């Protein structure tokens, strides 16, 4: 009795990753639920891209700490995805017959949900991952996929050759057909890196997923197994070149950089872009308040904040309080953080609900700063309290609360 309207293409969003390189930031939440850019979560980008591209049916595959992500997505209303036909569905692992099976790899996760996909009889399936910041029109990619009569189209981006070894790279002919694929090669033959965005003909993909599942040696991963298998079998794989801003925010460094990119008018990541809005669940807070003695420089501030101190080149999420004479510079302050009077935060990411008490310092270096010097990012975990006048050295990742102390004289 499950009726559903046929859809030309549906999206499957792989949101199961723990994102362990983000350390304390993903201790209690899945990586796609990590806050980004003042009011977003990372998953807002692929979700909004789908909606803006006219894709209204999205399966989100989760298995790691999904509560926050599930609550965040809810019924999908913020993305206009609360639909009777389609919309957004959370797809956790489940028990079938006698035993349950966790998702073994990206490909296995899709296979285990083939019943979900089949409900919509799609011609094409768009496979996305939940850990990149970018704005992309998947509809144009689908047009390309149809034009080239491809079995699988992989979105690629040009990267510097020296970084290509971190990606799956593709060699293509003049028609953009892929003739060679290397997964994280030591010696890359191309600098066209896979963005982890695939369009497959569903019928074709299904065959390869079943084949892959029968291979006990497979890691059940798209990049490592399914794509190479398809290429070896002579299927038509094409590379679709994307030219816009794209960033993997899988490390502390890259997460910090991508946030700072928002403040840089020269970086092509424009969020204030009405025809291609990035939707997010709203904090529901009143507008923020800027106090009598606040000083603001090149920063972004969200709803519900109370700013009494100085903010320079920083991203301030909703409901943050920054006390009198506090200084926040080159930092990312996640929702609901409280920064006490006179505290100093530099080059840091402060996790949700953290409390930095008065006079504490985070990420400061006492030596005079050389211009252009590389500064390590300091991270304070979610719900952590840094006691009054305590001092967290640059580059630390703080997982436990620390008491206050008398300052060194």
């Amino acid at each position, binding site marked *: 009795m499950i009726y559903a309207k046929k859809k030309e293409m549906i999206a499957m969003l792989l949101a199961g990753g723990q994102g362990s390189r983000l350390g304390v930031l993903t201790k209690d939440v899945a990586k796609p639920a990590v806050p980004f850019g003042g009011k977003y979560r990372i998953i807002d980008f692929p979700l909004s891209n789908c909606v803006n591209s006219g894709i209204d049916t999205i399966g989100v595959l989760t298995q790691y700490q999904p509560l926050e992500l599930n609550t965040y997505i809810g019924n999908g209303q913020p993305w206009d995805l609360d639909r009777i036909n389609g919309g957004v569905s959370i797809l956790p692992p489940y028990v079938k017959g006698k035993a349950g099976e966790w998702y073994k790899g990206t490909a296995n996760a899709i296979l285990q949900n083939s019943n979900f996909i089949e409900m919509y009889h799609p011609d094409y399936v768009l496979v996305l991952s939940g850990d990149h910041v970018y704005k992309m029109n998947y509809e144009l990619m689908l047009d390309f996929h149809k034009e080239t009569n491809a079995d699988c189209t992989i979105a690629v981006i040009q990267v510097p050759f020296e970084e290509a070894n971190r990606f799956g790279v593709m060699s293509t002919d003049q028609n953009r057909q892929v003739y060679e694929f290397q997964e994280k090669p030591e010696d890359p033959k191309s600098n066209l890196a896979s963005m982890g965005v695939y369009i497959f003909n569903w019928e074709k993909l299904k065959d390869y997923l079943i084949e892959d599942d029968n291979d006990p040696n497979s890691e059940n991963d798209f990049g490592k197994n399914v794509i190479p298998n398809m290429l070896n079998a002579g299927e038509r794989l094409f590379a679709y070149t994307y030219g816009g801003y794209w960033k993997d925010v899988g490390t502390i460094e890259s997460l910090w950089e991508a946030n700072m990119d928002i403040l840089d008018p020269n970086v092509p990541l424009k969020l204030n872009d009405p025809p291609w*809005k990035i939707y997010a669940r*709203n904090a529901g807070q009143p507008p923020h308040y800027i106090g009598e003695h606040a000083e*603001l420089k090149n920063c*972004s501030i*969200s*709803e519900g904040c109370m700013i009494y101190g100085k903010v320079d080149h920083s991203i301030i999420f909703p409901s943050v309080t920054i006390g009198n004479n506090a200084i926040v510079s080159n930092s990312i302050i996640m929702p609901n953080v409280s920064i006490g009077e006179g505290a100093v935060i530099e080059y840091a990411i402060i996790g949700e609900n953290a409390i930095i008490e008065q006079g504490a310092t985070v990420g400061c270096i006492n030596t005079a700063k050389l211009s252009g010097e590389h500064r390590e990012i300091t991270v304070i975990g979610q719900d952590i309290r840094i006691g009054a006048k305590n001092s967290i050295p640059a580059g630390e990742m703080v997982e436990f609360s620390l008491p206050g102390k008398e300052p060194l004289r």
Partner: protein
Amino acid sequence: MNVLGIIFSYAERDNLRELTKPRTLASLPIGGKYRMIDFILSNFVNSNIFDVSIITKNNYHSLIDHVGSGKEWDLTRKIGGLRVLTPFASPDAKGNGIYNSRVEALSYNMNSIKRSRAEYVIMTNCSTIYNIDFEELLRFHVDRRADITAVYTNNIQDPSLLAYDAPFYHVNDSGRIEDVRLFSEENGRRIDDYRSANGENEPINKSCGLGVFVIRKSLLDSLIADAMAYGRLDFYRDILQRLAGSLNIQGYEYQKYFMGIDSISSYMRANLKLLDVEIRNKVFENVVYTKVKDSVPAEYVSGCVVKNSIISDGCRIEGTIENCVLSRGVKIAKDSIVRNSVIMQNTTIMENVNLNYVILDKDVIVRENRKLSGHETFPVVIEKATIV
């Protein structure tokens, strides 16, 4: 909750000039990103009342645009939910379909009101921002076996924020309202009389009505039918005052903060009061829901100076602002100075502008080098979509 909320979206009369020309009072922007009705709707929802009807009269387009299907207030319900009652909806709308009084408005919409499953009705205007727990109010009404419960306030710290047609209630020791005192149009505005007698900022030690009533739906139906039959169309005079002797009308004292808005000066005052942390905390004690616009966070460019101001999402500040309330998407270019002003959505201030005590409606553009200055009680008001 066994209650239907009824909101009158328009003021019987207001003095808001240009501000209510393009819109009904309910959709007047206030406090940065809100509209007047947000506070009332949130009050209902926060009190677990999910069955709400808004009575409109005319000029309600922006209101419908704002509330939409009621989703943002969790009022897109299968049972109950939000209904906007508009003129001419019903085949039995009399005359030209337009009502001139609350009694008529209730009468013309009684069919729709009766369709609700709720047993009680809580009626409110939307010229006042307040924070009542309606669940407690209903318990009071039921415990007191009241026919009508009228909400009043006793301790008015700031008479300028009290609606000028608010009635005075004579509440006896057992809490019953024994008499209602009204000032007809000819006698002038009562609150103003008080102000002139007692000084503008003297507290008034009287029980003043806040325009909020609880009544059993079936009783409302028969009172309204009766009033209509005899052509008695004034709710205060012809129902409250006339029946105070025969009905058990109980007074419920509201002791928390409120702001009534019915003139340009009270509008200005209410906005600027929100800059006070204590008042803001009282007004936003519970969540206030509003329409989500998916704007980006506010951007502050190096060189900006911002002091004691409320700023909404989507703003971009390059100039100087002080003691201001900014709605979403306001742009202030560099070298401009804006003080003591309320600026509504998507208004743009170009370079080298100087504003003081100004209310700028939506979509206004103030061109380079303009200078406008009003006074706290007589702010300059610039109409929607004007280019100055």
